[in-house]
């Protein structure tokens, strides 16, 4: 549904993303992994219309969105979160989500000044949509809390709720589990899976391999701005190029079923050669 062809962007002399071709398939969870600086976040910024590519083309459901401004891309149904948790900390959780729904409303300055019926109608609709988004990420009870006062993990959920409130078809998550502890990571993983099960196409960047391996249906590996591998978690984790560029010693244990036991084991192995 989201397809990209020979996508590339350069910053000065730095070719951050280069000749990436492929597509995101609807209804599946796609993960993007790669070393730091591989261009993952930049790739997201391109897909979401945040950066304009210096080469290549992006289409969404057949429509060319390469040159569309961000808010129009969002309107078509592509939502994203940022690598740094970016939410409106001084606003309430609900208000954050309401803002996410703004793209689906049309009332403007005149509606505000005249207090039109559309304004009132859309105001109510926004709050309903926002509550629904909060429910999907499990934050409905916190709706009236100040977003900045929540835990790191809850703030990540707020950022997801904000994106969900835009009624997206595709959700791009940039390191949703960074900086949150393993216990919470499990909960977040569950939430993401539920979202996908509800029909949403999810694309995520993550370094937490445990999470990727349990969650992703499909993995795309970036390195030096280029796509070096693609496939199921099993395929990718055995791909020698990926192991060399990214996974290092972590490749073998990250196979779904053996995960938990092996993780503890690997720590101890490492501890021994310390």
């Amino acid at each position, binding site marked *: 549904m989201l397809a990209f062809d020979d996508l590339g962007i350069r*910053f000065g002399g*730095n070719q951050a993303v280069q000749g990436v071709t492929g597509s995101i398939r609807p209804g599946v969870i796609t993960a993007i*992994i*790669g*070393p*730091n*600086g*591989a261009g993952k*976040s930049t790739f997201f910024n391109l897909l979401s219309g945040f950066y304009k590519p210096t080469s290549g083309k992006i289409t969404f459901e057949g429509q060319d969105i390469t040159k569309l401004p961000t808010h129009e891309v969002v309107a078509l149904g592509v939502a994203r979160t940022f*690598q740094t948790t970016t939410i409106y900390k001084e606003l309430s959780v609900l208000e954050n989500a309401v803002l996410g729904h703004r793209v689906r409303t049309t009332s403007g300055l005149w509606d505000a000044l005249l207090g039109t019926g559309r304004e009132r109608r859309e105001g109510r609709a926004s709050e309903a949509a926002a509550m629904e988004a909060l429910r999907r990420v499990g934050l409905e009870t916190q709706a009236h809390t100040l977003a900045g006062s929540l*835990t*790191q*993990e809850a703030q990540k959920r707020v950022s997801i709720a904000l994106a969900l409130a835009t009624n997206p078809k595709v959700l791009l998550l940039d*390191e949703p589990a*960074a*900086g*949150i*502890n*393993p*216990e919470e*990571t*499990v909960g977040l993983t569950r939430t993401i899976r539920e979202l996908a099960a509800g029909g949403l196409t999810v694309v995520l960047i993550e*370094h937490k*391999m*445990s999470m990727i391996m349990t969650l992703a249906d499909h993995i795309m590996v970036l390195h030096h701005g280029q796509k070096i591998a693609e496939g199921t978690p099993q395929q990718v984790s055995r791909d020698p190029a990926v192991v060399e*560029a*990214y*996974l*290092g*010693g*972590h490749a073998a244990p990250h196979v779904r079923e053996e995960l*938990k036991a092996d*993780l*503890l084991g*690997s*720590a*101890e192995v*490492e*501890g021994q050669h*310390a």
Partner: protein
Amino acid sequence: MLEVRNLSVRYGAYTALHGVNLTVNDGEIVVLLGANGAGKSSLFKTLSGLQRPSGGDAVYNGQPLTLGRPERCVALGVSQCPEGRMLFPQLSVEKNLRLGAYLHRRDSAGNQAELERIYALFPILHDKRADPAGSLSGGQQQMVAIGRALMARPKVLLLDEPSLGLAPLVVDQVFAAVQRVNEAGVSVLLAEQNAFAALGIAHRAYVMEGGHVTIEGSRDELLHDDRVRSAYLGV
């Protein structure tokens, strides 16, 4: 020996640390585990002088660290690689690293050697040495931050979540580097979410919750502690 005695930190009405006690012996790697907001960074900021405590103190070899004067802490040999990195984004990678040795600015030969050691540790930084630090990826910036802290030639290195946002391979590299630094005689206090990797290289560890130290012990004790296993190792 670094000793933290009954240290408290408050932000306005909110108390982030409630009388924390801990020690880092010479040559040790000590890991600090804790959920978000447990107070790890607050502790680190206090030890590096960025934050004044509201009570208690910390001393390194008998000298106070808690005066809110980072330059004194660095001079005593306590150097921090902070959460959020705090690099100088428009200065080149090399200038960032060299500024890390600000207190040794008269010893240019020593700084050159130290710089070379850091380039050996993180070869990618050598390639990018002329680039503005802000143009690097998150992981690369983390390396610059660690490198900059090492340039101060610390006796105690404070690392606040160095693996944050790093690829597994790089996490390995970072931890391996930490170990090497430690083997060279530097004590390390390391705050981490990535409990596996951290405990892997630790000698001892503390667990913080809500501004209190709740568990302490050797690496093996913690690896087998049920509470730790469920909350931090996900087992």
